[in-house]
């Protein structure tokens, strides 16, 4: 496995670095440019929401299931949304079989944190009866092809899945929780639209949305989640270090690029219509 990485390192690293020094990317993009997003939603009939999102050659298929459980004692009127990710060995010779590894956990966690602190999921609307019954949403991401920067692909995938959700609405009665015949959809579940932006760093060069060859040779990454005008989450990974100035610059840039991407993707179009 790691041999692949090493071979790429020695051959491609120089080439990638030399390009970056000229502010060029190996796939022709500018330093602050995303690859193309492709999105389709609600294509999984068994799920109560789903999205198939590609970012360049990275592809993640996400689905939503729900359960009804008791709320946490300290949040008696709030539902719960959990994010899981699996880097399927189907998706890359770099991924191994077995229980979720560190990379899978990181993917789920960074996407989760970007959402959690952004007032994205309307947890209070996911309460059926205080202290008794709330929705638990499971947003499960499966990586189908690994083309680099799974985090940003996963962030959009999770968000599109939540927006496409159609969860049967329950009413608390003496006999249990009965279906009203309606569904919780779109803004019943989602409020803010946080996006996560990931930057690679090689030597002293920083760039947005690393593709796979860049990701394999980079020293580290920084993922920043943003809403319309706030930073809601940051995660550094890898052995790179960042200067204070770089961090401040990337914070501001993320809010700015996030705004553009949010407009371009127009995720609310993925709300489903049920007659």
């Amino acid at each position: 496995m790691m041999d692949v990485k090493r071979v790429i390192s020695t051959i491609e690293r120089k080439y990638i670095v030399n390009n970056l020094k000229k502010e060029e990317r190996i796939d022709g993009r500018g330093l602050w440019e995303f690859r193309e997003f492709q999105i389709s939603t609600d294509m999984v009939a068994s799920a109560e929401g789903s999205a198939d999102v590609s970012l360049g050659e990275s592809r993640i298929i996400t689905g939503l299931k729900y359960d009804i459980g008791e709320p946490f004692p300290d949040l008696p009127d709030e539902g719960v949304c959990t994010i899981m990710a699996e880097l399927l060995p189907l998706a890359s010779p770099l991924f191994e079989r077995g229980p979720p590894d560190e990379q899978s956990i990181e993917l789920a966690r960074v996407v989760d944190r970007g959402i959690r602190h952004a007032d994205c999921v309307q947890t209070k609307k996911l309460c059926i009866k205080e202290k008794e019954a709330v929705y638990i949403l499971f947003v499960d991401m499966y990586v189908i092809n690994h083309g680099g920067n799974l985090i940003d692909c996963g962030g959009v995938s999770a968000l599109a899945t939540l927006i496409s959700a159609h969860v049967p609405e329950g009413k608390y009665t003496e006999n249990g929780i009965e279906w009203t015949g309606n569904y919780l959809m779109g803004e019943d579940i989602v409020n803010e639209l946080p996006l996560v932006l990931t930057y690679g760093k090689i030597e002293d060069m920083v760039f947005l949305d690393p593709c796979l060859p860049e990701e394999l040779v980079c020293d580290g990454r920084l993922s920043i989640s943003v809403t319309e005008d706030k930073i809601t989450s940051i995660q550094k990974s890898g052995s790179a270090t960042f200067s204070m100035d770089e961090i401040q610059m990337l914070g501001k840039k993320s809010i700015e690029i996030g705004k553009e991407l949010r407009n371009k993707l127009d995720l609310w179009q993925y709300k489903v219509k049920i007659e």
Partner: protein
Amino acid sequence: MVLIIKDEYPDKLFREDGKRLDGREKTELRPLKMEVGVIKNADGSAYLEWGNNKIFAAVYGPREVHPHHLAKPDRGVLRIFYRMATYSVFDRKRPAPGRREKEISMIISDCIEPVLFLELYPGTAFEVFIEVIDADGGTRCASTTVASLALADAGVPMKSLVTAVAVGKIDGEIVVDLSGIEDKAGDADLPLAITWFNDELSLLQFDGSMDADEFDTCLKLGKEAAEKIYQIQLDALRSKYISIQESVNQSSNTSGGDE
């Protein structure tokens, strides 16, 4: 606690007009679509939609076997890893692979192995990863069919493709290609697979209750259905070849070839 949604298992699995609930005749297949080369990182891959089933298969190999002690000195091994996405079924599946997934993996492996020349690849493995994204009855047949296609896409030498389909009994009548609801509410299920190089069965399972005559009818109908599916597999391979051809032609056109 569960949300109470009145259970909608139908009383009957045939409509008044004698057709099945989804409008099919008894021997009619659900809509079926296949494509190869869908996962760039894999040595070969395929995608299938069959009714509401949506399944990916990716092939890696021949490559080193992990753990090493599973390697065989005199031949290659075929390893199938069948998995279902948590959201591919009505009640969320637990994320870790379960017993059922391991069992189906073994069945698919037994079913495909006869068409491979594993003796040519001592010490290595072909690993086939199957991911069911959406499940709607008959996933083991659909997975076998798409995995066989992915192996062909990977250029693995094969005696023939393998094609699988289920026959079954619903409301006392024998039908082919059970849908999810027919599978659950029906009386019997008989998945089979045909290895075309010798026209024999490499998968045969049965659960239900049938006398010998009914059983013979099932086998006959199963083979007829498999023949139709086999054509769709071949088309999927051909269309990749054609699209490569076209892109070659196109690029020679664009580059101004002298026709």
